[in-house]
């Protein structure tokens, strides 16, 4: 009995506690990301943004959530019911399970698996299913067109994201997420993080994450002027809220991936006194917040891409450049004997 408790039951409970500790703050962050988005864009437009509910409008996300919760869930009569409801669940679930391998500090990770970065890549490549299922099951032209656009877009940009990750992995020599961060530690401080040696790759990766999360200027799936709202037109109440939460949780996840791959994860910018006082998870959160701010800044600044321009950028610009970068980086690493694992 005691063996069963020590071997299986207690670890299970402990893992559930850790999951709650990750998911709780994450959902709070998602709620306040929507608030931050409205406030930041309002400031850039010289408006005030939400300022009525609570002090400075701080309770606005709660009010929005409550409103969505109390609305009626409408199932279109010609929709394919099961797939219609599975779609938003898949989107939301995928945006949460990826956090299992994200390290918040040294050793502060739920599952420190050997193939962590591949796991992240696999999860982000699955994100397209929620969108396709929603678009198809709605049995509506606008939703279907939005879903097709979105699927094509996510598949296209994933390829160059994969190549960018390979350039980083070549410099690390491991697929483990924690080791990717530790490989960026060094005497150079923040200039030793991978954004400086691989600067073009960092830019390509960030733009690809914008496309992957269907954000501005690549938000064609829900181009409201032409497609009403894209794949989620037919959704209301909680299923809609799941899409919304999933989209924002995905934004935070992509910002976290950018921070891990190029901005040194939880590492302080310089390994000297005032910087090392601040614990790692806070540095990590600050880096994620910086990336998210750029997401919002881009949204307030750029016009939307046309569809053929989007495809051109993905297939004719990013793909060749990132493919060339894989060859160049591996060539340089071999030529100068810098490849990890050889010395």
């Amino acid at each position, binding site marked *: 009995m005691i063996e069963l408790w020590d071997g*299986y039951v207690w670890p299970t409970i402990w893992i559930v506690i850790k999951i709650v500790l990750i998911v709780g703050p994450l959902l709070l962050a998602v709620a306040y990301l929507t608030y931050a988005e409205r406030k930041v864009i309002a400031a850039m437009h010289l408006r005030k943004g939400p300022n009525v509910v609570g002090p400075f409008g701080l309770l606005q996300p709660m009010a929005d959530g409550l409103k969505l919760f109390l609305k009626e869930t409408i199932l279109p009569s010609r929709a*394919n019911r099961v*797939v219609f409801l599975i779609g938003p669940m898949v989107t939301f679930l995928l945006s949460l399970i990826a956090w299992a391998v994200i390290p918040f500090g040294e050793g502060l990770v739920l599952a420190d*698996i*050997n*193939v962590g970065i*591949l*796991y992240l*890549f*696999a999860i982000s*490549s*699955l994100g*397209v*299913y929620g969108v*396709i*299922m929603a678009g*198809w099951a709605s049995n509506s032209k606008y939703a*279907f067109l939005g879903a*097709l656009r979105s*699927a094509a877009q996510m*598949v296209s940009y*994933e390829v160059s994201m994969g190549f960018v990750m390979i350039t980083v992995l070549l410099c690390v020599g491991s*697929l483990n997420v924690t080791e990717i961060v530790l490989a960026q530690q060094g005497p150079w401080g923040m200039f030793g993080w991978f954004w400086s040696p691989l600067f073009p790759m960092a830019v390509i990766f960030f733009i690809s994450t914008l496309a992957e999360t269907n954000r501005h200027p690549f938000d064609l799936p829900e181009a409201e002027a032409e497609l009403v709202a894209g794949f989620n037109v037919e959704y209301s109440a909680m299923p809609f809220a799941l899409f919304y939460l999933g989209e924002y949780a995905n934004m935070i996840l992509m910002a976290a991936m950018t921070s891990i791959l190029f901005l040194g994860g939880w590492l302080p910018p310089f390994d000297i006194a005032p910087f090392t006082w601040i614990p790692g998870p806070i540095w990590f959160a600050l880096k994620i917040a910086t990336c998210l701010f750029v997401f919002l800044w881009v949204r307030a600044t750029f016009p939307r891409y046309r569809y*053929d*321009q989007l495809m*051109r950028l993905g297939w004719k610009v990013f793909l060749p450049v990132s493919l060339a970068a894989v060859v160049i980086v591996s060539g340089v690493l071999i030529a100068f004997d810098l490849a990890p694992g050889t010395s």
Partner: protein
Amino acid sequence: MIVQGLAFYLFAFIAVAAAVMVISARNPVHSVLFLILTFFNAAALFVLMGAEFLAMILIVVYVGAVAVMFLFVVMMLDINFAELRQGFLQYLPIGGLVGLVLLAELLIILGGWTFAPEAAMGGSAPAPAPETVSNTDALGQLIYTHYFYLFQASGLVLLIAMIGAIVLTHRRRPGVRRQNIGDQLRRHPDESVEVRKVETGRGI
């Protein structure tokens, strides 16, 4: 060990049940979704065997790319499934025969493995001991060191297949106006804009 056993039977059962649903579902889109479920459970079985790299690659390649293409095609086609079913009994003997041959081959391979592992190894390069390297490393050593030329050759076969597919489907339609970014960027204000002084009431 009990938990591993239970997990194995859970994943294996779902995989087989989903595979049956793939061929028996009425709606082709449901079939593809069940196929994805089968892939997932196969990946879970890989993880149980300690082959986490293969599991992730299975998901990235098959679920993330191949199945998306399937889904695209199936959604766009207007298939009448009742019509497709009509020849079912007619093709059953051939299908059953192919299935039997596959089963027999699998049994021979697995039997060889179980009863004579040294014979099954044949002339293949020894796999690195799993205790010393992770299986990503082990696969890399096998593919890129021992079987490098075969790997390159299979890459070439895929490249040729890709070029063939592009050549067969590519068609150049005359009269399509494409955006040429180079041309647009090369334009200079001096050549494209002309500033004229227009007198009031005269026009150009």
